[in-house]
């Protein structure tokens, strides 16, 4: 689709533009541009297809690593004998495990669970102050024995919803 011939009122303008084009015809970029481009060529990153492949590999590795972490986390939370982490992780808590989680096992009345498993559960237990401090709850030691009595509301998914310390305020 070539351009139609210009009208008489723009002929002079088209001629002038053409003359400008002729005057510029020999202009070229300085050699330093080519030199810097070729330097960039030497250090260029891989093309898109290679990059895409690399990204795919990276995502696979990342997914694998995430799966491993998840498996380890689940094992830590759910494996028998790992009750010590239930408070921290909010895993589903059996009463006996909850009591055993750093409390005096002889005090069986410390924990109470609703019989309806779909409801929220209230767990009362005594834990080490240091354990709570590790979770971000800095408390004074009220009794001087390094432990504190708390109430914990646990959801049907096993995750802790609230933690209340009886009569003690965070520092």
């Amino acid at each position, binding site marked *: *689709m070539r351009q139609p011939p210009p009208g008489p009122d723009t002929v002079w303008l*088209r001629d002038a533009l053409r*003359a*400008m084009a002729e005057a510029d015809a020999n*202009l070229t970029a300085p050699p330093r541009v080519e030199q*810097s481009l*070729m330097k960039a060529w030497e250090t260029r990153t891989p093309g898109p297809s290679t990059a895409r492949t690399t990204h795919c590999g990276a995502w696979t590795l990342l997914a694998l690593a995430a799966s491993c972490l998840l498996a380890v986390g689940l094992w830590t939370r759910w494996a028998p004998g790992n009750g010590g982490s239930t408070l921290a992780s909010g895993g589903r808590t059996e009463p006996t495990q909850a009591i055993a989680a750093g409390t005096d096992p002889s005090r069986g009345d410390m924990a109470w669970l609703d019989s309806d498993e779909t409801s929220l559960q209230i767990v009362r237990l005594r834990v080490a102050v240091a354990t709570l401090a590790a979770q971000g709850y800095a408390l004074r030691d009220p009794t001087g024995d390094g432990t504190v009595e708390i109430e914990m509301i646990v959801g049907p998914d096993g995750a802790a919803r609230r933690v209340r310390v009886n009569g003690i305020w965070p520092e």
Partner: protein
Amino acid sequence: MVACDAGELHDSELIARAQGGDGEAFARLYRRHQGVVYRFACQMTGSATLAEDVVQDVFLVLMHDLGRYDASRAALTTYLYGVARNISRYRIRGLRRLTSLDAVVNAVAVDDPSAHLAQSQQIRQLRGGIAVLPARYREVLLLCDVHELTYREAALALKLPVGTLRSRLHRARRLLAEKLQARQKVGARVPLQSSGCVV
């Protein structure tokens, strides 16, 4: 337009080789096309310094997009014009906000890379007039009337419908003519039209 010489490899062949890591093929592509890109960038920006940066950026884009360039859609020159137009507009955007129109005209005259070749008053006037056109008109005028692309090629480079391109070109010519004639009326310049344009 740039065509490859007889016996020389076609652009698509050079691109294929460059994709395979052949640096010499890329260098040949650069040498073949840098002139048109540089001239267009000079005319768009009005500055040889900016034009150098534009050329470098255009070919860096090509370097990284070798795999994406589709020869069946547009000639390499058309693709390069399109990239050069985008980069030129980006580069001059900030400059325009800070520079008055008269200063731009003066900058074009002072920073004219072909000043030693074309000292004619008329060409300087013309460059000044082009420099103060809005970019959307300037690019259309340069591609169609200076670089002599067809409507279709220019529309491809600018990603515009042909109808829009034609109306912009018409408007660009009219605007430029008005600007040049207004300058003549001021009387400071040699009349462009009546001089017969021996530029």
